[in-house]
């Protein structure tokens, strides 16, 4: 089980993601705008952040950039939820410090599979991920 923070201003999508990830056994902290996401991240220190790009108060880019400026939070992987066909949005997200993006719309089982893969990929470990030939 992991602690995942979601930032999504569209309630239906937020509820669907929350339900899906809780059903998969994760602890979910749901937020509805960028400012709330930024403040809650500092409180809960999640293992993973799933964040929409376009949100009120602070955009996803702004939140991501601010998180990367904070030493104890910059390691938290940020994944943007981006609509298909918004390549410029994806690129700006990566430049802001996100590690990946998930294209919307997505099926709940795909989301669970993807999130579990991301948690495995970015889990902190003392072991070296890559060893030399």
């Amino acid at each position, binding site marked *: 089980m992991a602690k995942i923070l979601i930032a999504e201003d569209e309630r239906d999508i937020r509820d669907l993601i929350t339900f899906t990830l809780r059903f998969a056994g994760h602890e979910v902290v749901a937020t509805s705008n960028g400012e709330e996401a930024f403040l809650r991240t500092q409180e809960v220190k999640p293992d993973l952040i799933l964040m929409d790009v376009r949100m009120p108060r602070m955009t996803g880019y702004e939140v991501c950039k601010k998180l990367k400026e904070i030493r104890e939070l910059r390691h938290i992987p940020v994944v943007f939820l981006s609509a298909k066909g918004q*390549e410029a949005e*994806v*690129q700006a997200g*990566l*430049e802001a410090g996100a*590690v*990946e*993006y*998930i*294209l919307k719309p997505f099926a709940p089982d795909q989301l669970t599979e993807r999130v579990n893969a991301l948690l495995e*990929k970015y889990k902190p470990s003392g*072991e*070296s*991920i*890559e*060893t*030399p*030939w």
Partner: protein
Amino acid sequence: MSAVIIDDKIVHYEVLGRGKPIIFLHGWVGSWRYWIPTMQAASTSYRAYAIDLWGFGETAKESQKYSLEQQTELLDTFMNAMGIGKVALIGHGLGGVVALLYANKQSFVVDRVMLVGLPVALDDLFERFGSTVPSDLSSRLLDQNPGADVARSEALKADEKAIRISLEDLKYIDLLEMSKQISAASLIVHGLNDPVIGVPDLSSNGDLPSMLHHIVFNESGHFPMLDQPNKFNRLVNDFLDLEPGESPQRLQLKEEWKRRIR
């Protein structure tokens, strides 16, 4: 999806596992996705990367980057961006050509290279391809293989120019001679029933260098990794498990690979 920005453009990649790095390079039809089963098999012991080349999958479609030189440059820049040092390359079709060009150019960073469906015999390559339209190639090469659904859907994302330009560039390269010259352990693999890539008779080319070996899948077409996944994945793992500097010539096709459980 994971991506890096190269020359202000998105380059899509995925990575699985921990261990020595391997990079999988897709061919003219499809994207990184058809490598998933092979990556999963390899990722129990290795760190398996796969990238979408320029014009394929989710990577940017930029026609000025479709030359073989630019695709090879992409591999080099990607490795630098990821901090990958010495690497094993596994390429298929176009990816095999890129892997070979890279191994030839940067021999000191390539530990071994596996070239699947390498178009060694170029004489009638264009006639064999017939068309460079992704949907036409997908129909011809993926046949009715039910395991190829992912490759089929991904094939349609490719930019036709990326296929055509890379094929045109091939006219000026002697891939067989180049593969004989690289010092890293090299394994060339073909599917006997491949409708576009002819199977060369490498035994008629004199003795192959000790670090080069050729294996033919008698029951496969253009996609041995999809047609005979168990045999293919076992061969990949056997190749990766060779000691550094060991000749690949002892390798042979074996039945399903099973990991020993202690």
